[in-house]
């Protein structure tokens, strides 16, 4: 016999409370009597203890039986038959790397999974599933016990957040489609109610944890030379913690800071004046429950020299960007765009022009022509009033929009989903989207020429957008599972993962999707090396105190399948209700009977 809701069995611990009414009821009534001489001679004087002998009426035992049946019914007991076809779903999200007495939660789950397969015996067949990056089957064909154990042992945890899976629906559908007799979900989430076929087996306990939840290395602006780094340390515990945070590069500690994080809050530590390196790592010194989130990676911001390829019929306007320190601009006409070598440019500016397809490089589209495949433009408008803007946003910071008045605009009509950055009553004026890791910005007005102090709102906007594009050029760390866009890949290019695995890049594949490990990815492109940082991007994975509960319910049995369980808790519930009725019927009558017996005592 098994219990689908074993938590309800804790109710048995509360059963002794049933005695309390009887104990309090039986606390001796203090009565004065003329003389105790006859009482000391006769009867049964009780002990002088606080409670004395407990006199329990038959109704007590009826109530005890009633409560026992009720608790048993709530714990949903089932008689189970040994299944032969099962599925084991292993949670391999980042939090499964948390340590439980020296072992990771994944190891504990694997051990439990192996013990489940052992119980199956030789006729049993097992399918193994993992939950991240999505719920997917690991094996192609159903496995025997030994093979299944081998597969289970080979499963690694990814540095990814929990996939957004509705386990109740997904596992139910899985059981329905694959005719599983039982599905076990091995996870570090606590189990709520269990289904008849789908079961949650929980590993690990709630634990305090410290985590670096953000790390960024940047220049304060495009023209700045000094680097600064900031790391956010979150304290997922119930007490304040003092810790040391070290900034490292190439395995060497550059600097470190002591920081105090309040319980349940986050603290930010800022590093300045450190040496330039291509990559950086920030680390919490000391050990806690989840080592994964004790370090985080970032790539140094690109050189302050920003190479821009301007595609415009008005070269003078685009060339005005050269007045910005660190910016170099090469101008080509729209007709020569296809011939240009675009690989080395960090930004392509299409000024009154548009390519046939979305470029691989980050691109700025200024007033694109009417007939293009990327974005449509509306009717021209004279002086445009800005009605709203995204705030906070890197593109709109420091801008006084009451002074931001483009003299000519054509509101945009985006064809794809993205962010509207600046809006007007006639339509969006600035529209941003991110595709394959690259930033694209569409403007319905012309910020060029760059006039510096003579047009401050527009100049600030221009500097903002250059910063924004600079960030997109691989300097900002991104979350795991976010793809790496290479732009142009040549034969012989390789990608080295944080685990040291070398992947030869196919010339066609310009994007690497499987960034499931936290760390630094190295793209070796000829003689050039570019770095990409990927970090765990979900604070929920680091918060090991209160993971969400997984509730599973009975699913509709697939026709033709036999359940591995016989549920009989409804019968217990009916029996307990009958007892309740009996107790309600008997109790007052017994009380009356006793009163009557007492009153008819002979004098």
């Amino acid at each position, binding site marked *: 016999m098994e219990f689908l809701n074993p938590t309800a069995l804790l109710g048995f611990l509360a059963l002794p409370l049933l005695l309390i009414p009887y104990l309090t009821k*039986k606390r*001796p*009534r203090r009565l*004065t*009597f003329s003389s105790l*001489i006859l009482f000391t001679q*006769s009867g049964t004087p*009780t002990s002088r203890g606080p409670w004395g*002998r407990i006199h329990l009426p038959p109704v007590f035992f009826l109530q005890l039986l009633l409560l026992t049946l009720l608790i048993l019914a709530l714990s949903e007991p089932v008689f189970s038959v040994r299944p032969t076809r099962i599925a084991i779903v292993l949670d391999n999200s980042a939090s499964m790397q948390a340590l439980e007495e020296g072992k990771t939660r994944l190891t504990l789950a694997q051990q439990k999974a192996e013990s489940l397969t052992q119980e199956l015996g030789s006729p049993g067949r097992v399918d193994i599933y993992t939950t991240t990056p999505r719920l997917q089957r690991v094996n192609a064909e159903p496995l025997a016990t030994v093979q299944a154990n081998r597969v289970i042992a080979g499963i690694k945890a990814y540095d990814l957040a929990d996939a957004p899976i509705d386990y109740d629906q997904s596992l139910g559908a899985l059981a329905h489609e694959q005719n599983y007799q039982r599905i076990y979900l091995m996870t570090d989430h606590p189990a709520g109610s269990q289904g008849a076929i789908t079961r949650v087996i929980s590993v690990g306990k709630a634990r305090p944890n410290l985590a670096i939840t953000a790390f960024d290395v940047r220049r304060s602006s495009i023209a700045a030379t000094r680097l600064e780094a900031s790391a956010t340390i979150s304290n997922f515990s119930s007490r304040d913690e003092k810790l040391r945070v070290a900034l490292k590069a190439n395995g060497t500690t550059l600097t470190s800071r002591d920081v105090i994080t309040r319980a349940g809050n986050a603290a930010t530590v800022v590093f300045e004046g450190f040496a330039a390196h291509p990559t950086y790592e920030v680390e919490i010194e000391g050990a806690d429950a989840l080592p994964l989130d004790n370090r985080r990676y970032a790539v140094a911001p690109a050189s302050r020299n920003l190479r821009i390829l301007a595609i415009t019929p008005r070269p003078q306007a685009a060339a005005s960007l050269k007045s910005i320190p660190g910016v170099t601009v090469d101008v080509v006409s729209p007709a020569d765009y296809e011939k240009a070598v675009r690989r080395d440019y960090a930004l392509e500016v299409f000024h009154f022009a548009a390519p046939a397809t979305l470029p691989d490089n980050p691109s700025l589209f200024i007033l694109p022509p009417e007939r293009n495949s990327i974005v449509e433009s509306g009717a021209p408008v004279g002086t445009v009033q800005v009605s709203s803007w995204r705030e906070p946003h890197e593109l709109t910071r420091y801008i006084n929009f009451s002074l931001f008045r483009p003299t000519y605009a054509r509101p945009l009509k985006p064809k794809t989903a993205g962010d509207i950055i600046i809006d007007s009553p006639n339509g969006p004026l600035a529209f941003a989207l991110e595709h394959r890791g690259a930033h694209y910005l569409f403007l319905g007005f012309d910020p060029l020429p760059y006039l510096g102090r003579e047009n401050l709102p527009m100049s600030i906007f221009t500097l903002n957008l250059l910063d924004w594009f600079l960030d997109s050029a691989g300097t900002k760390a991104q979350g795991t599972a976010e793809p790496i866009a290479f732009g142009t890949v040549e034969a012989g290019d390789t990608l080295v993962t944080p685990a040291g695995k070398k992947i030869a890049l196919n010339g066609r594949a310009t994007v690497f999707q499987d960034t499931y490990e936290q760390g630094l990815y190295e793209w070796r492109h000829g003689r050039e090396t570019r770095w990409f940082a990927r970090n765990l991007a979900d604070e929920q994975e680091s918060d090991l105190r209160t993971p969400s509960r997984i509730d599973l319910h009975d699913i509709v049995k697939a026709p033709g399948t036999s359940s591995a369980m016989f549920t009989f808790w409804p019968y217990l519930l009916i029996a307990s209700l009958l007892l309740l009725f009996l107790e309600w019927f008997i109790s007052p009558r017994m009380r009356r009977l006793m009163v009557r017996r007492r009153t008819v005592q002979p004098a």
Partner: protein
Amino acid sequence: MLTEPFTPEFLAQLEALRLRTRKEFLGSQTGSYSSPRRGTSLEFADYRRYAPGDDLRYLDWGIYARTDRLYIKVFREEVDLFAYIFIDASGSMAFPSPEQKFLPATYVALALSYVILANQDHVKLHLLQDSSGRASPFYRGRRRMTNCIEFATSASPAGLLQLGPSLGEHLKRLRRPGKAIVISDFLMPAASYQQGFNLLRAFNLDISAIQILSRVEVDPPFSRGRLALVDSETQREINYEWSDDSRREYQSRLAYHNLEIRSFCHQSGIHYSLYVTDRELSDFIFATLPATGLFK
């Protein structure tokens, strides 16, 4: 002014009664109780030889005719009675309330007092309380009934009673033998009341014992369960499991205790009667007490 239950009808009925004694006492005045002395009553006692100076009216001429000797008829002297009524005024007499036990006890005492006073005999009330207690002066005549009531109702039951020592203190002040009536619940060890009765016997008193119990003591109305019972005199507390069985056992113990008292009284020539206070007082006075031989 007498109140309930001492109505004129009740008093009239009491006047018809007269205490009975098993012993002869030396009275102080002429009365209606026989004395060991020879006197001038109508009750013949004996003959004795004539001596010069004897009253010739008492010569038995019949004996002289047959034996030719002179004999004088001797008659018993009839004297008045000295009665002592001892009322238990200990704490146990206040249970469950003075109105349910002590007051009925004083009514019994007062009824007996009235019987004595109506016969022009002497009555003295004693309150048994702690080791000593108060005692009234001797009262004689109906008009002293008011004094009796005042004395009896002025008492309030309290304290611990040890019957032997308490009676001993009262007996030290007694000079005349007579009738002793002890009114108590006798809820005490047998040795205690036996010691008390023996003391009274040693003083050559004719003894009557009236046991007073309330209905609550005969059939305790406790509901089943655990009780912390407190002794009204000693304040001793015991925990007690009250059940139907223990109720039966208590009642059999009480019956045995009363039987012991009755048996001792019977062996010692003491009138014994039991008065459960929920019974009518007149019923007890006019039916039970005459049946036990307390009244002539």
